[in-house]
């Protein structure tokens, strides 16, 4: 299991993997430790989400991804 991601340290431009199986790029970080603003890169369960911006809840974030 991946380590818990500390949202305070996530920077815009980084990529995150979500428990849903989707991946997303961080657009901005309100630095509240709870939410990230992201843009979906992939979304196997809901392909229409790709390219959309959304707010992602901390407990939905599985891991920080490396290029």
């Amino acid at each position, binding site marked *: 299991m991946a380590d818990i991601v500390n949202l305070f340290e996530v920077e815009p431009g980084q990529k995150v993997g979500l428990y849903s199986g989707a991946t997303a790029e961080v657009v*901005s970080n*309100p630095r*509240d430790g*709870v*939410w990230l*603003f992201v843009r979906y890169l992939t979304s196997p369960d809901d392909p229409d989400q790709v390219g959309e911006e959304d*707010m992602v*809840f*901390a*407990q939905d974030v599985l891991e920080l991804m490396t290029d």
Partner: protein
Amino acid sequence: MAITFQPSSYSGLVDRDNGMVSREIFVNSDIYAEEQERIFTRAWLFVGHESQVSKPGDFFVSSMGEESVILCRDRQGEIHVFLNSCMHRGMKVCRYDEGNTPIFTCPYHGWSFATDGALVGVPFYKDAYHEELDKSQWGLIRVPRMVNYKGGIWATWDANAPDFLEYIGGFRTYLDILFDGWDGSEGGTEIIGGIEKWMVPSNWKFPAENFIGDRYHNISHRSVDLVGIGPSGQGRRDNSEREGAKSLDVSFPERGHGTVMFLRPEDAQPVPSYQNDPIVSEYFYQCEIARKERQGQLWRILAGPGTIFPNMSYLPRQPRSIAVWHPRGPDQTEVWRWFLVDASAPPEVKEFLRQYYIRYSGPAGLTEQDDMENWNYAHAASRGAMARRYDYNYQMGMGYAVTDFEDGGLKLDGTVLDTTKARAGEQNQRGFYSRWREFMAARDWDGLATWRNNGSAC
């Protein structure tokens, strides 16, 4: 001792005809609880200044009565005032004094709100709420009425309250002196420095009535006058402009507002002030000349401290500041003090004023300490079972005020008590408590807007 009061009881607690006020209204917890409902949910209250939220995302956490509110500017630049309470379980969504943010996130379960108050983030929205929660119905509670008057942000929880300018009435003349540039130009003030905040173990009405026009307590400040903290090195403020002026107490009892002021003679001219610094002195001298030219007769008004009912007080000049007396229980008041300067003033002037404001006001300032001693001990000595049986006396100057004051062609609105010879009076306090009684007894604004029917204060 717990005494329960009905609305009809309040006329007995504030005896306007005889100038007496029961100590119960200061110390009784039932009355205090009623005040929160009858006064602080219905009156217009001062929340903050637009210069505190100058950029999109800026916020300032303030209070309306006991309740925490957020003053913020959204991404489109619009200013809002919200109840600082999550719509899910009530947690404060903002626990900072001020700052800049894209969203307000509740730390309890994570609901988050945009700076326009809209609910934008709900954890597990898809899985737990099945996307059936109507987010549009669960945004932050916003005040139904808000106004930006010359930079001052005011709000009321009562959608049926009169417009702010109707609420202020003839007191607008004095409010303008506070918020206009010192040269008389429209608006143009800004907040300087942080907000001083401190607790006073006293009922909120003690400082409110002090600022509305208590010239009588001048003796309390004798020590600071001896020290000479004023901007010209004498007294606690400049008094040279008062030469030959009349001392007037102005009350608007049908609204509860009041102020003390000095009316300069018709042939008065600007005189030097702020003489500890030549740049500052010249700045204000030129402002006075410009203001005299702009305002004509109104320039003769040298405004003093005042209170806008219920809990916003101010000093228009030295130190130019706003005080709000936030109720925190019958025996506790949280004092907030804002300081104003002309936005266009040179940096030397702003810094000079900042230093003067610090040594005058607040818990570390030399003048405010005098007042706090009085309010603290007066309150404590009024709480006892015996002490609260005896009314306070507000009879000074009763029967000597006029409603048609005129001097050299300048007519003043309101009820005016000339205290030039008497040196003190208590009509402003009587007006304040008369209005307090109305707020506590009236069912709604139909009963409170007495001036619409040419009614008297009560």
